[in-house]
Every structure is written in C-alpha cells, then in structure tokens.
C-alpha cells in the first residue's frame, strides 16, 4: 500500500506515520515492537531532534558545570486538548519551563512521557507533538528523553502528558518563600485569569463577544533578564490553578508573613472581568499559565518593573502590593471601594452561581 501523507493545516508538515494504515493509536504502539519503534522515530525523535535523543539510549546524559541544578515535574490532563491560545503540548512544555524558572534556574532539558488511549487519532497526536517541538524551541529547551504507553480504550482521556525538567542555577541568590522580607514589593507580570476563562468557555460552550485566549507562555526568558540584571529577587511563583490568591497565600503561610495587595493595581482585561461577573467567579482565583509574581526588594522594584514592561510577556506588569511588618501568615487586600478584606484559599474549585 502506498503511504499517503496528509498535510496538517496548522503546521504545514505532513504527519510521517502512514495515516491510512494507522489513523489511530493501537495497543501495539505501546507494545515495544515495530509499531512503537516507528512511532518514536517518526513522531518524537524527528520532531524534538537533538543529540541526546538521537543517541537512543535508556536515558539522556549531559555535562554540568559547578553550581546547582533545579529539577521539577508536572502532569497535564487538560480537556479540551486544543483551546484558544494553546494546546496540551505547549502547556506541557511551558508548565515545566515556568516551574524551573521560578526556582531561578535556566531551563535546559525536559523529558516527555505520553500516556495514549487506544484509538486516539494519530493526526491529533502529531499536532500536539509539533506544538511541543515549537514550544521547546521557543523556550530554548531540548526534550532529551521520553516514554510512551498505550492504555485500553476507555481507560484514558485521549492523551496525558508528563514532563520533567532540569535547569541550571547560575547565580548565588536563594529564591524561596522563606526569603521574603518586610517591604518587599510584589510585581505581577501581567493580566490574570485568561487561561481559566478560555478553557471554561470552550468546555462549557460559553460564547463571548470576542474569543478569550489563554495566557499560556514560557516566562523563563523574562525571569533570566531579571536575574541577569542582578535584581534582588527573594521569591517567585507562577500562577496556575488556584490563581493569584493561592500563590500569595502559599507564600504568606510558608514565610509566616503578612502580605497586603491593592485590587486596583491588579490587571484584569474587561473580557475576563465580564466573564467572571456572569459566572460569579473572582478573577483572583482563576487559573493562569503564563503569569508569575516576583517578590523584589523595594530598592530594586522600579528597575525590575521597567525590565518586565520592556518584555512582551511583561508589558502589563504591575506592582500589586508588599510584605508588611506584621509577622502573621495572612493575605489581605484593599478592595475597589477602599475597604480591607482577607484573601482566603478556596476549599475547592469555583462553581458557577445560580443567579
């Protein structure tokens, strides 16, 4: 049978797996035989292309300089797989890259583990892998080792991806919640809530006047610029599922310090604000995938803000609050009409209200 290569409209590159023969993932694609070998070679090695991966060894080896390494992992189980502003592939790369960046590390190498459900369309996997390849290239990391497993139909949700990453720490700063100090200023890198609302809109079929795109992005380059400029950063945290509020509360609790923020200084687009008003959500608790907060010494905060605003991923950066003199693990906020309230962690996810 002659292979027919179909051109993918998103990437303009044909999926190299013979689509007519194997339009869907089969159990044998995880079985250790010919089909699995073909999948790894044609799908993963050809896309992620780098010397370590091409060694086809059980793991990747690489040299390290003196200093410290950072190591992080995360699993991605998102539905829908594709959403405005990204997909599970780019998310899986950015998520781990961002976690490494939050440790003050320059991300270098990633692993990628795929759990595929039998029957998953090959073409869809190809799009996801291409997106991962592009995201890795943009974030300047190599995917150097990986794994593929296939689970029976009905025992997975299409595709689950795990990435782990290694980064190198090239400075002497200790970046951690315990390092935050009185009068540190808190800089938020951009507007909040777009990822959560974008996903919600697709998942629930909600339509707004304009499409809300996820903020899904790798922030390592921006973080490296801050570190290279010798900004005195005491702590960083990327804002993920629990939103801005959870990140602040986690740090306040770990450090045993009081954090105060101003609602007016937190950027939220009117589209996200509108969607939140309709659903009864608070943007402070909505998920993000390309935003972080940095605790910076007061002396350095203006300079840090300038650097962030000069970067495309930090153009809406804003100083949203500071660490106060009080030694209690608490986050408070001055609201829009001037009254103060506490910011508490939610017990579960936010649920749409009745009326």
């Amino acid at each position, binding site marked *: 049978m002659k292979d027919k290569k179909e051109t993918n409209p998103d990437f303009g590159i044909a999926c190299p797996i013979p689509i007519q023969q194997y339009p869907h993932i089969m159990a044998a694609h995880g079985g250790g035989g010919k089909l699995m070998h073909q999948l790894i070679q044609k799908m993963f090695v050809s896309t992620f292309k780098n010397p370590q991966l091409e060694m086809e060894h059980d793991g990747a080896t690489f040299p390290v300089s003196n200093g410290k390494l950072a190591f992080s992992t995360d699993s991605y189980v998102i539905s829908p797989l594709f959403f405005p502003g990204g997909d599970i592939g780019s998310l899986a790369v950015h998520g781990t890259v961002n976690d490494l960046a939050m440790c003050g590390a320059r991300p270098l190498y990633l692993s990628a583990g795929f759990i595929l459900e039998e029957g998953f369309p090959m073409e869809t996997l190809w799009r996801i892998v291409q997106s991962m390849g592009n995201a890795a290239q943009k974030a300047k990391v190599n995917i150097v080792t990986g794994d593929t497993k296939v689970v029976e139909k009905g025992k997975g949700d299409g595709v689950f991806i795990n990435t782990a990453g290694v980064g190198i720490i090239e400075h002497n700063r200790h970046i951690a919640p315990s390092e935050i100090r009185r009068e540190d200023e808190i800089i938020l890198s951009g507007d909040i809530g777009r990822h959560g609302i974008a996903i919600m809109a697709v998942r629930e079929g909600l339509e707004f006047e304009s499409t809300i795109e996820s903020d899904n992005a790798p922030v390592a380059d921006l973080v490296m610029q801050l570190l290279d400029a010798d900004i005195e950063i005491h702590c960083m945290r990327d804002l993920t599922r629990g939103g801005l509020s959870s990140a602040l509360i986690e740090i306040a609790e770990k450090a045993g310090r009081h954090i105060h923020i101003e609602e007016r200084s937190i950027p939220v687009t009117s589209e996200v604000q509108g969607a939140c008003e309709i659903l009864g959500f608070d943007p402070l608790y909505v998920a993000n995938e390309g935003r972080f907060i940095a605790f910076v010494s007061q002396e350095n905060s203006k300079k840090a803000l300038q650097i962030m605003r000069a970067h495309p991923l930090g153009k809406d950066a804003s100083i949203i609050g500071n660490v106060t003199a009080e030694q209690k693990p608490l986050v408070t906020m001055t*609201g829009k*009409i001037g009254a103060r*309230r*506490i910011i*508490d962690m939610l017990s579960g996810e936010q649920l*749409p*209200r009745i009326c």
Partner: protein
Amino acid sequence: MKYLEEYRDPKLAQQIANSIKGITTRPWTIMEICGGQTHAIIKYGIDELLPDKITLVHGPGCPVCVTPIEKIDIALQIAEKPDVIFCSFGDMLRVPGSEKDLFTVKANGADVRIVYSPLDTLKIAKNNPNKDVIFFGVGFETTAPTTAMAVYQARQLGLKNFSLLVSHVLVPPAMEALLSSPNNKVQGLLAAGHVCTVMGYTEYVPISEKYNVPIIVTGFEPLDILQGVYSCIKQLEEGRAEVENQYARVVRKEGNVPAQDLIRKVFRVIHQKWRGIGEISTSGLGLSEDYSEFDAEKKFAMEHYTAEEPSECLSGLVLQGAIKPHECPAFGTKCTPEKPLGAPMVSAEGACAAYHRYRKVEQEA
C-alpha cells in the same frame, strides 16, 4: 468595565456613605434580603463604611441555603439511580444532605452534570433518549421563569425522559414570616433587585403598609447597596414606610409580565419548607396539575420522604438575621467549607460562606 466600574467608584461610595452619616440620628436595623447582596456587603466591606448606628442583618435570600434537606436527599437518591443523568446548578453540588452531597455521589460514579441554564438539560435529554434526565430547579422568582421555560419546552418537544425536581421559593411570604415574628428586629428591608426584575414590586406595597417598613428594591453593586441603605434610612428618619426602586436601571414596577405568565402556567403556589426555618405557607412553587407529568418526585415515588436537619446548625437563625454567622458556636470549628453542617457555609450566596471567606481571621482576632 462599562456598567460595572461606575458602580464601584470609591469616591462616590464615600460620598454616599457620608450622606448616610449625615442623616442618621438613631440606631436602625436593616435587612438585605438577597445572599448576593450579603456577599457584596462583606466582600467590599460596605458595612464598614456605614455609621455604627446602622446594623445590617443578613436575610434568607440564598436559594441554595433554604432548600430543605429532604430535597437534597431526594436529589442524591435519584442521582444514584442507574440510567439517570442528574443536572444541577453548580452551587448545589456542595450542599450537604443528611449524609453526603452531590459531589460525593458524582465521585462514586453517578452522572451528575453542572448546567448553566435549565434549557441545557433539554439538549442532554434529547441526546440521551434512553436515560432519565432530571433538572434540580432551585431558586427564588429570579430563576423560576427559566425552569418554567424548560418544562414548557419539554412538553413542546415531547421529551418524556425529562423531569424536574423542584424547590422554588417566593420572597413575599418569607418577608411576612420575618416581619410578623415576635423576635423581629428588622426596621427596613432591601429587596432583591433581580427577583423584582421578574416580579416587579407592587406585591411589596401591602407588606410595607401592614408592617410599617420601608422596602427598597436594591441592586448588587456597592453603590447600589449604599444608595439602597441611604433611601431606607431617609424614610426611617422621616417616619415614612414606602416601596422605593433604587434599581430602576433594571427593574420596572410591573416586572417581566411574560415571565410571570409562564411561571403561573407551569407552576402552582404551595406550602414550602425552608431549611433551618420551617414551613412557610404559600411560599413555594410546585408543578401545576397540567404539568405534573414532569414531576421527578412523582416519577421516582419520592413524595413522602422526610429527613431531620442537624441540630448543631444554627443556619435558620442566620437566615432570619437573628444571629451573625460568626456568632454560631460551630462557625469555623465544627462547620467549615470543607465539612459544612449547613448550606450557608458552602453556597456562593450563603452568609456563613461570606464571613468565612472574607472575614475569618479578623473575627478570630
């Protein structure tokens, strides 16, 4: 953001707060009916802008909170049946029944789905002809028309596999029950703007006259609530008791007449039990005789089920404004959002949830 930021302007809020201070000479107790208003008051700290002489007490207007425990238990039992898709507003899923909540039965494998509109349930029913699809219709007059529309359309579409578990409640009988109680402290009411969007406000006139209380139809943004308080205090100070419409940008005197017609067509007024409060006569909506074929309680033979509410939960007193949430001995200890005794601790409109979320630590201090 247009039509929102204007109503959250700190300078204007302070101006109205100052005006309220200027006209207040005596202590007054005002109740906001709606749980949405309670949350806005606590979230924005509106009560902190008011003079000490004014006490805001929180009313029963949290539809999730007043849904009787029997209905939650019935919902759980129906949801657990095979070949059933149970649809509900998201807010109901954490509400505790006698033993568990809808999240628990969902985790145990029941097909429980969150919908944004009752009409979404009809699509689900159409797409799953071999399953029984139930919508849990909860709420005040605000949500009653959309529930009614779902039932009405189900008949038009000939959907035999759709039914409704209904627990709709009405504001005016609850107002009367509160005001006629011998322990009543409430001197003025802020009525729920969105209920009045549907019902208008002529039905409040006899209540205002009978109990000699000002009733101000009020919106949900900080400036709305402050204006509502201002109008209420002004009437109290001047010795007047009238119905006034602060929320005129949304509410008309006669309300939404076609919506009211639809409610009357599909529902009939019944005596209704309110969680924590007890039965209030003519305070609920049940399916009318003509639409009784869509009654899930009949379909699943659940009409005679009864259950006891946990005695440690003082939500009834909270819902009647008799105590503030943090004055309940179980608040924050035996009763938390993770392990609630009553619904006000988990609902987005529940007063206990508002205090726990925005004020917990400061109450402790």
